[in-house]
């Protein structure tokens, strides 16, 4: 699971008001290089919850993102490269996503989060 996906995921257990962001528990992170597409980053930037991304990246061991960001930074290639790496190249391979309100853990195995709910959670 990439951090772009993490930024788009929330816990939707019945009764949870705002299940975002999911806390990340790391067992294994893998890095996979992918081609750099600045247009994608510029397009997605306005949709990102920045703080959630910075925290998630830090949990995954990447600390290069600035605490605050605004769209003027999209002019800087250096910033875009860091954003690219954080959003698309870091994968949570093994671990869990934890609902911020209930503490319920959603396991991540082989890079695939299991967000299925139990009967009493829907």
């Amino acid at each position, binding site marked *: 699971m990439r951090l772009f996906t993490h930024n*788009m995921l929330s816990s939707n257990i019945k009764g949870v008001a705002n299940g*975002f962001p999911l806390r990340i528990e790391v067992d294994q992170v893998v890095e996979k290089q992918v081609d750099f597409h600045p247009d994608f980053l510029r*397009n997605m930037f306005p949709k990102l919850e920045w703080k959630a991304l910075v925290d998630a990246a830090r949990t995954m061991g990447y600390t290069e993102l600035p605490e605050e960001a605004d769209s003027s930074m999209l002019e800087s290639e250096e910033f875009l490269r860091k954003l690219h790496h954080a959003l698309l190249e870091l994968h949570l391979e093994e671990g869990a996503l934890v609902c911020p309100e209930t503490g319920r853990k959603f396991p991540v195995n082989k890079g695939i989060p299991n*967000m299925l*709910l139990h009967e009493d959670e829907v």
Partner: protein
Amino acid sequence: MSPKTAQIRLVSSHPEVYEPCDDSFALVDALLADRTNILDHCPRLCLEVGCGSGYVIASLALMLGQELPGVYYFATDINAHALRVTRETLDAHAVDAELLCMDIASGLEKRLAGMVDVMVVNPPYVPTPDYEVGREGIASAWAGGENGRSVIDRILPVADRLLSDKGWLYMVTLTTNDPSQICLLMRKKGYASRIVVQRSTEEESLHIIKFWRDSDIQLDTKEILTTNKSVPARVKDSLVSQFSQLSFWRGTNSNCL
């Protein structure tokens, strides 16, 4: 067919995962038929709900990949085995997608609302008793409840929520699902529709329908809502006739499903 998608190989399988069948092929054919439009459309985010073996999402990624390299793909399935098979299918074809085990798109609905440009679905659409729907195992690949509509009817509002203003939905339906009624339902949400591919087997007729937001229809719908009128009879008739003509059409026979 584009030579690249024709090469999709089934590198992995699992007794509980749906193998690509006539419906999967028809859906990919529809995407191929519409490929130039999709390229012009420049999608950023694509989503497949119910990816099964990964045949469709891998085909989509391959057919768009060269011209549109920076696209992000999501694929969901309720069956964890399906996602593992999808991963192997994607890897074997050197394409990638984010795989998520969830009911329809439940964990994405909040944050991904209004962002999906292309959504593809080959839903479980076979009429079955309702209790067979969504159970563990291979049955959930086809079990669609009454008229095969129980999962489809839950997918439509999700699609409406996730699709961007310019978003397109491609969905497989069977004649028994009452596709003209599905189009009417979507019309009430402001969507126009068109049959991209039609195909018949011994017992059934498959339609791949494309839906998109249409501003004229949205105005129409507002009027319907505010004046409490129903959908004009001419619209209903034209939708119904589109589909009824097709049920006589006979194509290649099939022995799957």
